[in-house]
């Protein structure tokens, strides 16, 4: 019974191209970051407005739910479906930093007083920066390991 693997290794590599494509990773990260940023922006605008009619409240609620749904979808993709390798995590973390900073600036410009928005935005920014530091640390550790292993003579 000398069977050959089916699918072959090359066929398997081809089948893995979908989850490994850069587009699938970009889509997952953008859905997560844009969903969170949108939810923060809409939430801040909604909370800063007073005496809104019922329909406007409904519109804000729907918009917020829409943004949260995208954030949840992006979160599910990032944690369950799409592999984020060390370099991808660094890029994703910096995307989150930029999105947090931009959302905070926007929200602070549109709301009065800006202090609560700045506090919430600052927390998001701090979390994004923490993720960026962790991603860089992990990537640096892997690079060190890689260089060490490359210098080590191959076992017989």
């Amino acid at each position, binding site marked *: *019974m*000398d*069977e050959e*693997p*089916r*699918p*072959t*290794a*090359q066929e*398997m*590599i081809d*089948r*893995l191209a979908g*989850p*490994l494509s850069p587009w699938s990773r970009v889509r997952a990260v953008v859905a997560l970051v844009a969903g969170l940023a949108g939810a923060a922006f809409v939430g801040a605008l909604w909370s800063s407005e007073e005496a809104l009619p019922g329909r406007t409240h409904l519109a804000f609620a729907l918009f917020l739910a829409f943004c949260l749904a995208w954030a949840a979808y992006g979160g599910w993709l990032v944690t*369950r*479906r*799409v*592999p*984020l*390798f*060390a*370099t*991808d*995590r660094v890029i994703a973390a910096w995307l989150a930093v930029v999105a947090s900073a931009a959302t905070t600036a926007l929200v602070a410009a549109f709301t009065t007083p800006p202090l609560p928005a700045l506090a919430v935005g600052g927390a998001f920014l701090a979390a994004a920066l923490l993720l960026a530091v962790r991603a860089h640390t992990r*990537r640096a550790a*892997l*690079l060190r*390991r*890689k260089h060490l*292993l*490359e210098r080590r003579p*191959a*076992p017989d």
Partner: protein
Amino acid sequence: MTDELLVVRAQLGERAALAELVRRWHPRVWTYTRRMLDAGRADDVTQEIWLAVVRGLPRLREPGRFTPWLFTVARRAVADRLREEYGRAEEPAAAEPAAGDPVEAMVDRASLVAGLAALPVAEREVLVLFYLEELTVEECAQVCGIPPGTVKSRLNRARRLLARRLRESHG
């Protein structure tokens, strides 16, 4: 290039390293699933295993322990498939031949494979991991989530059962 270096490079996001890892380990992963399942299911489950490996690889903390981790993923996928189809992995699957062809049974190797296929899942699994995949007892224990002593006792029982089975088929 060592497996550990390939894994580290793949974890950094190098597609070529990941492809090389698949090329290097795919035959062994397929052999394991094929010895545990019939041909049709083995092919499906092998793909599921590689998807799980690719998704889980960024979180693997010890690249040097890739082999036991890979077979832990493979074992989980095989067990899920058996559980899905039989409710319980142990009993009905134990009697289910994973491979069997009357023509092949004419040669020793085929008898061995058929004998292997007739073993209970738990014994077949340690035999495949230890002899075909050449994992150590400690690695088998890690993959199966059991103490090394249990691996040894299962190996003994598996050898006895296989020997009996081969004697029966030869005479």
